[in-house]
Each structure stands twice: as structure tokens, then as C-alpha cells.
């Protein structure tokens, strides 16, 4: 992430942030409300552009191991003379970058269709392959045993924790490289949160995870790196070896 600034209606929300998120790691962003965590997260899949009055400067690069890709179109850095890698189409970028929101936002369809519908729309896979991938995704998030008898029942009947895991499965079914999590456990109870945290730790072996969290203890539990945001900047960058107590973290925030 190179010198990324984001403006909403001319008001600068992010101030020239330069940062790197390690592959197959969980990076946790913490900070006060309004410090720009969510905006920072949404620069990675260009979701800020869905809101009115948003303007982004700078560039984000995506390194998938095989490819080095630019997230924003080249015009974004006019006149710098720097050779830019190929930039991604918006929809294919978003397919590579899965996202989970604060509250589970399932579609008002069946459990199966929740995953199959976006999958069918973005990939031209055959019906049998889609079914295969739906089942795989459900197994990956540990929902399979719970919903296998109710695959075609409305997804609204699931509990909050199950709905959030369904959203995760929906994102994973598209086989992304990166997962963006915006306080994924904000609306869940302790047990459901713990379950998701454990799940993330397992998933980190395959995916690059960037997560926004309000809970400092959660950040310490799951984060390989912790970044502290304040007033649109990243003020501190801590690795897991730098063992800080929650109180020390609190002081930094």
C-alpha cells in the first residue's frame, strides 16, 4: 500500500498511508472510532468508491505469489513516471478479495443459494462444480454438520454466529487471495466470537487476512501483526514477538 489518501467530500480521511500486509498472516488494525480503520480496509477492494463523494489517491499492490497487480487504475498516478503493473478489473479484484462485515448480511434466500447465487453469477462453473464448491466452503467454516439437513431452508433462520460463518463461506467459495474482515465479531456473543477467531487462525495458513477489531484482547489473540490507526495514519506497527500487555496497547491507542 503506497501513499494512499482517501477523501470524502474533500475531507481527508486517510493521510498518505504506506503499509505492507504480510502474506498468510493476520494483520489486525485497531484504533478509536473514526480513525479510518474501515476506510483503510475498504481501499483494498475499492469499496469506498461505492459511497458518494469519495476520492482516492495513491496505489495499492496485490502480490498473490504468482502475480504482482495494481488495484487502482494507472491514471491514479499520473505523471509519476513509475512503471505500473497491470491493474485489475473492478469485479475480478473484488472476487480475489473477500470481505466480511460487522453484521452478518446474508441474502434472504436459502442457505445453499446464499453461496451458490454469487458463485453462479461470477463464475461460469457447471452446476455440479458449484455444488461441490458450496459443500467445500460450508465444511471449511464448520457449518456443514449444522446445516446439511436444512440447506434449502431460508438462511434467516440461522443464528447470528452461523449467519456470519455463512457469509464467510460465501466469500471463501469464490476462492479469494485476501480476506478483509471489518469487526467480524462485533455483533456476536463470546462463544461465537471465539469460534470465528479459531477459524481465522486456521484460515491464515491459506489466506492473507486483514482485520479491523475493536477488542484489544482479540487483536492480541489472533494478530500476527497489530497496526494502530489514529487520525488517518498508522501510528504504530507491532509484531507478535513484541509482547505488549492489553494495558500497554490501550495506552498506545
Amino acid at each position, binding site marked *: 500500500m503506497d501513499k494512499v489518501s482517501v477523501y470524502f467530500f474533500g475531507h481527508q480521511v486517510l493521510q498518505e498511508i504506506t503499509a505492507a500486509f504480510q502474506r498468510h498472516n493476520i494483520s489486525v488494525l485497531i484504533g478509536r472510532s473514526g480513525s479510518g480503520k474501515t476506510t483503510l480496509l475498504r481501499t483494498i477492494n475499492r469499496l469506498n468508491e461505492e459511497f458518494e463523494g469519495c476520492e482516492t489517491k495513491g496505489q495499492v499492490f496485490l502480490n498473490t505469489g504468482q502475480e504482482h497487480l495494481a488495484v487502482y487504475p494507472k491514471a491514479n498516478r499520473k505523471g509519476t513516471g513509475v512503471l505500473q503493473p497491470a491493474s485489475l478489473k473492478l*469485479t475480478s479484484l473484488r472476487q480475489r478479495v473477500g470481505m466480511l462485515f460487522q453484521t452478518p448480511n446474508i*441474502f434472504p434466500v436459502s442457505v445453499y443459494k446464499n453461496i451458490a447465487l*454469487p458463485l453462479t453469477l*461470477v463464475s461460469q462453473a457447471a452446476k455440479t462444480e458449484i455444488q461441490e464448491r458450496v459443500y467445500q466452503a460450508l465444511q471449511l467454516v464448520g457449518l456443514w454438520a449444522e446445516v446439511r439437513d436444512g*440447506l434449502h431452508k*431460508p438462511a434467516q433462520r440461522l443464528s447470528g454466529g452461523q449467519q456470519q460463518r455463512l457469509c464467510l463461506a460465501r466469500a471463501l467459495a*469464490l476462492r479469494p487471495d485476501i480476506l478483509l474482515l471489518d469487526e467480524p465479531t462485533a455483533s456476536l456473543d463470546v462463544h461465537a466470537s471465539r469460534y470465528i477467531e479459531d477459524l481465522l487462525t486456521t484460515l491464515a495458513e491459506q489466506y492473507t487476512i486483514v482485520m479491523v477489531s475493536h477488542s484489544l484482547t482479540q487483536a492480541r489473540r489472533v494478530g500476527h501483526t497489530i497496526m494502530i490507526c489514529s487520525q488517518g495514519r498508522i501510528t504504530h506497527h507491532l509484531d507478535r514477538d513484541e509482547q505488549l500487555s492489553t494495558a500497554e496497547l490501550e495506552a498506545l491507542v
Partner: protein
Amino acid sequence: MGKAPVWEGIWPAFMGTLCLMAVTMGLVLLPGIGCGIFLAEYATPLWKKRVNTAIDLLAGAPSIVMGLFGFTLILFLRRAFFPEANTCLFLAAGCLSLLVTPVLVVNTREALEAVPSSIKLAATSLGLSKNQIIFCLAVPMAVRGIVSGSILAMGRCAEDTAVIMLTGAVANAGLPSSLWAKFEALPFTIYYTMAHYQSQEELNLAFGAALLLLFLATAMVALAKLLEVGHKLFWQGERPSVLQ
């Protein structure tokens, strides 16, 4: 045999009303729903303002004015282009469709605007394009509102008298023979018979027509319910056989 008229009573009026509803809906469904989708999802603020003002104006126009418009239109056409042109089923359906367009547009727009933005955002984050989100997610979610708008519009077609009496409805035409012919309709039959009845039988006929119109309205409510349930079954996938 052969001495009594074949089509006596309110059967021609009933069929006329059904034909009128069918033709009107054929004319108005696509543009009305399309306009609603445009307003809710695609229109720039400027276009939103313009089209909404136009729709409000149309919604405020009294039906007799719409009838007069049709009548004047046919006079104009006779003088200018087609001396043969006359008031007919198609003209009545055209004017009625102008009358019911706002109902359909506003209902569609409101149903689409009620789709939570969080769901659209989630779909966006999954890499779905704007058109995919609108037509595969938002419109199916808004079907209930769109259907109720359509049923309201159909009800309006069935009951409106002022428009059709200036644009082609007559007291005695038999079954509607073509789009370009005059026709009978239930509300006009009620109106006409109530004003000019000469015997108890004719009065009874008018009451019968009124009752039939009520039944027609009930049938439309039932149709709406049926469509809603059917859609829910298909869309939410409560019926396992749909996908397996």
C-alpha cells in the same frame, strides 16, 4: 332458438373488462416497472427530479382529463392522418395505461429502495456487477412490492369509468371483437344502467355487474397472494426439488 339475443346480460361487459385489463397491462407493465428500476437504481439526481415530477403530475391528473386527452387525440388523428380512426379498445387501454403508470412506477421504486444497502454492499464486495446485483438480487427481493403495484394498477383498470366512456366503451357492443372495436365494460355498464334503467330486471343486472366487479377485485387479491407464495417458494428455495 335464435329469438333470444346470444349475448345478453353482463357477460360481454365482463369480457370487455378482462380484455381491457389485459391490453392495458401489456402496454404498461414493462415501461412502468422499467421506469421504477431506472429511478431507484440508475437515474442521476437530476433525472430523478425530472422524472419524479413528471410522475407526480401524471398521478395527480384526474381520470376524466385522461379520457378527454384520448378523445382529443382521436379527433386530431381523424383530421390529420387517419380519417378512419375512432375510439376503441386500444385507445381506452392506452389512456388507462397513462393513468396507472404512476402506481406501478412508485411501487417498484419504493420496493427497490427498501432493499437494505448493506446487502447490496455485501454483493458488491463479492464482485457482482451493478446489473447483476439489481436483476439477480434487488428485483427478486422487491417482487412483493412490484406485484402489489401491478395488482393495484389492474384494479384501477377494472374500475375506472371516466377514461373509458370517452374513449370507446359503449352500452351495447357485444363481445370485444378486435383492438380497434368498441367494447362494453363492467363499470360503464353499472354507471349506464343505474342512470337509465327502466325495469326491475335492468336494475338487478346493474347490481349483478357491481357484484361481479367486487368478485373480480377479490380474485386479483388472491392472484397477488398466489404469485407471492410461488415466488417465495422458488426464490427462498423452501422446496428442495427446485435445486437438487
